[in-house]
């Protein structure tokens, strides 16, 4: 945390001073990605509704996607920064596709669970507990 305190002031000047007039960089996108990711993780941990957990997963995947796109974007690259190029966008596409597949299976499982237990509260899924 000490390190963070040392970093923050030096960061704050270029990041927040001329936010409206200076172009955004990769770091801005990373901040958005981090917030989405954290919200998703907290959502997964906190929600007791199975569908809520599923929404948390979607948020996490999106946070990662934001980072991939930011690293691949030709518009955001600062001088001397490496870039993922097209690969970032392609990986983001695959993430979107796999997320769709995952959501379909997870939803089918949830509906099955709902049929058998008449609830979507995942704390009640304890049949296999010894």
């Amino acid at each position, binding site marked *: 945390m000490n390190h*963070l305190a040392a970093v923050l002031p030096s*960061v704050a000047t*270029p990041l927040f001073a001329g*936010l*409206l*007039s200076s*172009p*955004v*960089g*990769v770091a*801005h996108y*990373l*901040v*958005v990605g*981090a*917030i989405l*990711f*954290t*919200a998703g*993780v907290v959502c997964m941990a*906190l929600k*007791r509704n199975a*569908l*809520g957990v*599923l*929404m948390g997963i*979607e*948020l996490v995947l999106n946070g990662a*996607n934001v980072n991939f796109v*930011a690293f691949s*974007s*030709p*518009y955001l*690259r*600062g001088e*001397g*920064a*490496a*870039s*993922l*190029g*097209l690969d970032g*966008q*392609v990986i*983001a*596409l695959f993430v*979107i596709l796999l*997320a*769709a*597949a995952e*959501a*379909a*299976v997870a*939803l*089918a499982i*949830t*509906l099955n669970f709902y*049929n058998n237990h008449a*609830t*979507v509260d995942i704390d009640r899924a304890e049949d296999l507990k010894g």
Partner: protein
Amino acid sequence: MMIAVLASSMSMLGSTLLPISGPMAAVNWHSVLFLLFAAVACACAVAVVLADNVVRMAFYLVLSLASTAGLFFLAGAEFVGAMQLMIYVGGTLVLLVFGVMLTAQAPFVAIKTSSSDRVLAGMVGAALLAVLLQAAFRVEPWRRPAVAAEAAPAATPIGMALLGVRVDEPAAGVPAAAVRSGYLLPFEIVSIHLLVVLVGAAYLARAKRRRTPRAIDVAASSVGPVVEARQAARSSASALVSGGGR
């Protein structure tokens, strides 16, 4: 919502305005729009966590993911943005909302979490966020403002890459001699994967043989495969589209 309308129409302006963001431009529209979309995305993501009602959570999630698509457009990834809108927002989330509505009976609409859990999760989340933010700010070149760049439209190179041919420029900092692989094999694997998921989801959510079939089973079995089929068709169709491009 008017703000959302304006924002989306202006985002389109913003992406074309990017090249003139020199010292002449007092306000950088790209940044303004970025802030707008980022604020909506983050605020709605937090609202998903804070909301108790599962339908509202779904609604906030829709807004969050839609403005993330806006961010993708701003970053020049138009194809990914459109895919996000079509598959994620238009497909996956409709599916999710469907699931919510099938199970949204009064006792399950709002399942409360205990406040001690909330506090704990909040602390863990804050710690995680601190680590991630620090990581984002640690690398010097990421913090530098962007150089105004012109980029080729990415839809065609993406389609070619999915067919196994790379036609895009090598990324900055990567030696040109480095092997840049196409994505034909992953693309085929994902196609098969989607097919398997289609069958699997249909099997899991199928109507069981009961003496009196419950309405919920019938609905689930008729809805699941349909939505899944749409996603599979979309993904393969869109890949075909971009592959056939130009």
